[in-house]
């Protein structure tokens, strides 16, 4: 059974324009492949920038080529970094990221496996970062990381997307296999244009 948190929609309209990148977690160690996150994110950004600006009249805040490139690159990179961090490599389950172009915005979907024991931790992190005004939560988290000498920056990228890019974010947890158990999480980031 799937568990949903935040702004996750299963009933997205079909997008004709989308791009999916799949990374197999077993071909090379994580450290060597970190660099790939930036490459993949920049490729997505360059590819989608071609569709912008969508019309001359609507060159709004998010709409110029340069801005869209920078926004897509930031969000895709953060999603890939999170997927790499949380993925349960023992399952051999791939990491995937999809970006869809819709009439009213962009939708990112990033999927990775998650260690069964990490599910609870991840869900409490989600509860923490969705429990109020993202701008306040972001400043609070930065202050807290500093005071506690905390080197765990989890959640900061997601908070930045919500606070500085006005993104809506949702999560879907699914048990896709029972024995051995494999749990996946899909993070959905929606960005209005």
């Amino acid at each position, binding site marked *: 059974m799937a568990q949903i948190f935040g702004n996750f929609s299963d009933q997205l309209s079909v997008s004709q324009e989308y791009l999916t990148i799949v990374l197999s977690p077993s071909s090379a160690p*994580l450290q060597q492949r970190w660099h790939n996150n930036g490459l993949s994110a920049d490729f997505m950004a360059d590819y989608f920038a071609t569709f912008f600006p969508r019309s001359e009249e609507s060159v709004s805040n998010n709409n110029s080529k340069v801005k869209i490139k*920078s926004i897509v690159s930031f969000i895709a*990179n953060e999603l890939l*970094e999170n997927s790499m961090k949380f993925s349960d490599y023992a399952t051999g389950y791939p990491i995937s990221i999809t970006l869809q172009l819709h009439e009213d915005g962009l939708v990112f979907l990033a999927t990775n496996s998650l260690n069964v024991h990490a599910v609870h931790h991840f869900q409490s992190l989600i509860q923490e970062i969705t429990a109020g005004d993202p701008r306040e939560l972001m400043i609070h988290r930065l202050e807290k990381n*500093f005071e506690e000498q905390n080197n765990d920056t989890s959640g*900061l990228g997601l908070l*930045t997307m919500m606070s500085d890019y006005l993104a809506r974010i949702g999560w879907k947890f699914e048990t896709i296999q029972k024995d051995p158990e494999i749990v996946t999480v899909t993070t959905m980031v929606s960005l209005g244009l």
Partner: protein
Amino acid sequence: MEITTEKYSVQYDATAKIVTCRGALRLAGMDEYAPIVQLLDQVIEDHPSILMLNLQELEFLNSSGINVLSKFVLKVRGQKDIRLVVQGSNAITWQERSLTNLQRLMPQLELTWE
């Protein structure tokens, strides 16, 4: 003091009291950022009365990097007698979106745009 790689550089000009970050910083977590944190700590130890942080050529910064810059600003805030001026670029989207967070962490911080 200087850290330079193919993708980014962080420099401290101890005479002019300017820290300059350039390129794309997307290192893996705080461990990989440790040398940069160390450099920034040394800048604070140098105790300049006015310190410039020039980010005008920093094209990309991931969230771990945002954490590093925020910690640096909070350390400077704790010093009380260092005046911090952050130089940003309006043409770089992440800066336009996220740099004011530094000012929210340290209201006395001066933010200038090119």
